């Protein structure tokens, strides 16, 4: 069992979460019609053996989508933060940064 330290809910088993996808992908803007850019984002993966940034959804918790750093060989978990920059910033505010565990 992996354990992820959710910035909202605290340390939780990974089966509360849904693994979404590789978090390093930047999708092109919807107005971008360049096929190569879309092909790149949709199909190609770095697929590293080692540090990997990935998106996990806290499905059975706060439902925040998180960016998690994890080693794909050792499964050691690194930094975890909300994927949405505004939520990440809001959690840094003292009034909303209360952490339950």
């Amino acid at each position, binding site marked *: *069992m992996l354990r992820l330290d959710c910035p909202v809910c605290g340390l939780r088993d990974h089966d509360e979460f849904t693994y979404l996808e590789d978090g390093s992908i930047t999708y092109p803007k919807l107005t971008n019609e360049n096929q190569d850019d879309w092909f790149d984002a*949709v199909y190609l993966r770095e697929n590293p053996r080692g540090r990997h940034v990935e998106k996990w959804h806290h499905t059975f918790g706060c439902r925040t989508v998180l960016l998690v750093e994890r080693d794909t060989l050792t499964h050691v978990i690194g930094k975890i933060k909300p994927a949405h920059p505004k939520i990440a910033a809001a959690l840094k505010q003292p009034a909303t940064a209360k952490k339950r565990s």
Partner: protein
Amino acid sequence: MSRYSAWQIVKQGLTGNKSWEPAWRDASPKSSYDVIIIGGGGHGLATAYYLAKNHGITNVAVIEKGWIGGGNAGRNTTIVRSNYFMEGNTEFYEHSLKLWENLSQELNYNVMFSQRGHLNLFFTPGQRDAMIRKYNIMRLNGIDGELLDRDQLMSKVPHLNYSQEARLPILGALYQGRAGTARHDAVNWGYARAASNLGVDIIQNCEVTGFISNGGQLVGVETSRGEIRAEKVGMAVAGSTSLLAHKAGLGRLPIESHKLQAFVSEPIKPFLDSVVVYGVGHGHFYISQSDKGGMVFGGNLDGYNSYAQKGNLPLYTDVASCAMNMMPALGRVKLLRQWAGIMDMSMDGSPFITKTDINGLYLNAGWCYGGFKATPASGWCFAHTIAHDAPHDVNKLLTLDRYKTGHMLDESGHGPYPKSH
């Protein structure tokens, strides 16, 4: 090397079994070969065998970082079938099943291929209709497949959970009688022995650390046992494909590495004489009984990218609950072993056997869950592709650029998703 036969068994038995020869030569690397195959799993060994047998190319090395058959070739659930409906997959997997049917004779090695039949259960009318469509397409392509209603299925496998109180009552199954199982280690050893017999060098404990090119042409590989030259290099390293692709300069591929667990129970008396599979909603489960009596089964991927060959507990309990839903009689059977292998999960659930943009480099990858049954045809087609520098008709659609041109082989209809099977 002497042929295996009943006469050999009698003769060796009477003389104390003292003069059996090793099945294959454990070779040391030469400085150059005509072809190097990276990866001593089933696919790599089969490729070397067919290069020698079908194309007369015997100056071949198979280089393996560990021992042969130590990766996914020795970690699968040994199911062989050809129930695919997309052009590209249909003919490829059927070609493989035909090679399986004669493999023990061809290799002079008992791969214990048992055509015990493969049952794909359905639970809803929609699922039944989709499966009938698929099996009709198979039949139009000359592949066997039949529809069993609930009563026919009950007489074939009486101890499934037929309760009307079940969460999803079983309505019937689609059946492929020529499908079955084989002994995975025997397949590797059989191909290794047959290839070695034809002059192929099998080199173990030899890890590829880099690729050597000369003006855009690949000319060899650097390994932990020195430099080895060859004008053609084939990669059959499912699980580690992306790592070697980066070293070779192929860049990123449409693959993620995921781990898949497999389970085997303590041996029990004969209980199940076919392969039973179901997939409904998120539930996915496949089970057969080995010749030793162990129930061999598995389910979904663990779910997150991984290169660790060890499985997690939530999936273990998920698969166990799938087993209990389908075969409640297994409840008291103890689990003997559990393990995980690393899959090349491609973005459409189908593999590639293809040339690459680098001259002299050929790629065999992206097998998802399905590499074991493909072993003979994978080696057969990869050998053809390497020998002729062009694909055979059977693998011409298993290309890498299909993702770019929109010709995905997406059997499950998921769209770009690296967890199809």
